[in-house]
C-alpha cells in the first residue's frame, strides 16, 4: 500500500496560494497607481536616443575646471562622514546588543535611535543640515554621518549579539574588568565584521554623497545640478562618468582591503 505524502498541510497550502494572489494583486494595483501615459511611453526610445546623442562626446575638457575639485570634495564628505558615523554608532551598538547591555529598556532606546537614523533618507538629512549650517560640504558630511549611524550601528550590534558567549564568560570568570572583557572578549570576535561593515558603508557613502549636491550639500552633485540646469548634456555625461569611475575604484579597493583584514 502506498502512503500519501505532502510537504504542506491544507492550511499551509491555502496560505501559500494567498501569498501568490496577493503578489499579483499588488502588481496590478501599483501599475494602476503610477498612471503610465501611453504617449510618453511611445516616444521614450526616441527621447532616449536624443538624450544620448546630446551626451556624446563626453566633455572631458570640462573635468579639470568643473569636476575635479567637486569630486575630491565628494570623497572627503564620504570618508569624514563615515568616520563620524562609526564614532557615534559604536556606543549605540554596544547599548543595543542584548548580551553586552543586559537591560531591555536601554536596548530598545538604542534601537529606536538606530531606526530613526535609518528611516530618514540622506537627501532629507542633507536638506535639514543645509537649513541649519547653510549649503556646503559640512551639511553633506553630517547628512552622510547621521544616515550611516543606523546602518553601521545595527550591523555591529547584530555582530555583537551573534558573538560566542564562551570567551566572554571565561574572561568574566577570570575577574577581568568590563572594559577588558569588551576589548579582549567581544572585540576580537566582531573585528572582521566591523571592518567589513565600515568599508561597505564607505562604499555606499561615496555613491550617496555624489547625489547630495543636488540639494546644495556640496560635492560632485553640485556640478551635476549646474550642468543639468543649463542643459549641458555633454557635461552631465562627464560628471556621471567620473562618478562611475570612482565607484568602480572604491569597489576594487574595498574588496582588496576586506580580503586582507579577514
Amino acid at each position, binding site marked *: 500500500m502506498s502512503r500519501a505524502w505532502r510537504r504542506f498541510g491544507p492550511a499551509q497550502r491555502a496560505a501559500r496560494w494567498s501569498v501568490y494572489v496577493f503578489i499579483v494583486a499588488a502588481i496590478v494595483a501599483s501599475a494602476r497607481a503610477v498612471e503610465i501615459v501611453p504617449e510618453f511611453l511611445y516616444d521614450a526610445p526616441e527621447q532616449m536616443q536624443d538624450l544620448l546623442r546630446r551626451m556624446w562626446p563626453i566633455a572631458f575638457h570640462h573635468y579639470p575646471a568643473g569636476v575635479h575639485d567637486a569630486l575630491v570634495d565628494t570623497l572627503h564628505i564620504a570618508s569624514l562622514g563615515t568616520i563620524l558615523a562609526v564614532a557615534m554608532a559604536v556606543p549605540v551598538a554596544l547599548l543595543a546588543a542584548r548580551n553586552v547591555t543586559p537591560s531591555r529598556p536601554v536596548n530598545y532606546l538604542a534601537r529606536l535611535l538606530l531606526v530613526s537614523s535609518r528611516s530618514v533618507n540622506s537627501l532629507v538629512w542633507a536638506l535639514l543640515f543645509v537649513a541649519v549650517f547653510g549649503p556646503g560640504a559640512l551639511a553633506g558630511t553630517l547628512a552622510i554621518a547621521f544616515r550611516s549611524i543606523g546602518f553601521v550601528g545595527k550591523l555591529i550590534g547584530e555582530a555583537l549579539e551573534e558573538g560566542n558567549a564562551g*570567551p566572554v564568560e571565561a574572561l568574566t570568570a577570570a575577574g*577581568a574588568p568590563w572594559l*577588558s572583557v569588551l576589548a579582549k572578549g567581544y572585540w576580537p570576535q566582531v573585528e572582521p565584521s566591523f571592518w567589513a561593515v565600515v568599508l561597505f558603508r564607505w562604499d555606499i557613502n561615496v555613491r550617496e554623497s555624489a547625489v547630495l549636491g543636488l540639494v546644495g550639500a556640496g560635492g560632485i552633485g553640485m556640478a551635476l545640478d549646474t550642468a543639468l540646469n543649463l542643459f549641458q548634456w555633454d557635461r552631465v555625461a562627464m560628471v556621471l562618468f567620473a562618478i562611475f569611475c570612482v565607484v568602480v575604484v572604491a569597489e576594487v579597493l574595498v574588496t582588496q582591503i576586506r580580503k586582507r583584514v579577514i
Partner: protein
Amino acid sequence: MTASALSIRNLDKEYARGKPVLRGISLEIGATGITAIIGPSGTGKSTLIRCVNRLVEPTAGEIRFQGEDLVKLDRKGLRLARRQIGMVFQEYNLVERLSVMENLLCGRLGYVSPWKAWLRKYPQADIDRAFSLLDTVGLAGLANQRADSLSGGQRQRVGIARAIMQEPKLLLADEPTSSLDPKTSVEIMALISSICRGNSIPVMVNMHDVELAKRFADRIIGMSGGTIVYDGGPAGLDEGVLKEIYGGEGWLQ
C-alpha cells in the same frame, strides 16, 4: 585535611520559581586535592560549580572563600574574588582569533588595566610566566599560533594554562574532558592533576566519566536530584552507590 579552601553552606538554586536545581548543598573543599563531582545529566553539577564564582547567581546560601561570603559580594568585590578562582570549561572558551600567548595573558586581565591590555602592554613577569607555563603544558613553540588552529586537546591545554596564569587559590573545572577523546581526556586530567598538586591548588571538577573520576580524584561527590548522595573516597564507589547516584541497574552489568 587542613583548613578548607571553600565552604558551601545550604546552597539553593532555582532557575524557575518552585523548581529547585540545587537543594541545600553543604560542602567543604579542602586546601589541596582533587574533588570530583559526578552524577546524571541535569542534576545540577554544572550549576553548583558555576554558583561558586557566580557565573550563575545562587538563590540562597553561603559560599565562604578566603574569609568572605562570595554570595554577598558587590560587583567590585566579586571581581577581585574571581581573580583568585581559575576556571576550565568544557568548550575551552578560548578567544578564537587571538594567539595562544594572548589567550594565556587573558588570565591576567584582572590585574592589568584595560588600556594596557588593549595595547598589549603586559608586565614582563606575566610574559615570562606564560612562556614557562606553555612549556609545562606541552605547547612550547606555539605561542603565536592562533587558538582556532589548535586541536581540542591543545585548546584545553591553553584553557588550563590560562586558568593557572591567574595563580588561583581554587580551580573550577566544568566537564573539562567531555569534548575530548578518551586518550586525550586522560592526558588532560593528568595535566590538571600534576599542575594543581605541584602548586597546591585545590580542584573542584565536574565529570561524567566515573572511571576517570576514580582514577584522578582524591574525593568523589555523588549528586542526584540536586542533593549530595555520596561523599567519600574513590574506593567507596561500589555498585550500590552508583545505583543510588544514577538510578537503575541495567547499565551496570
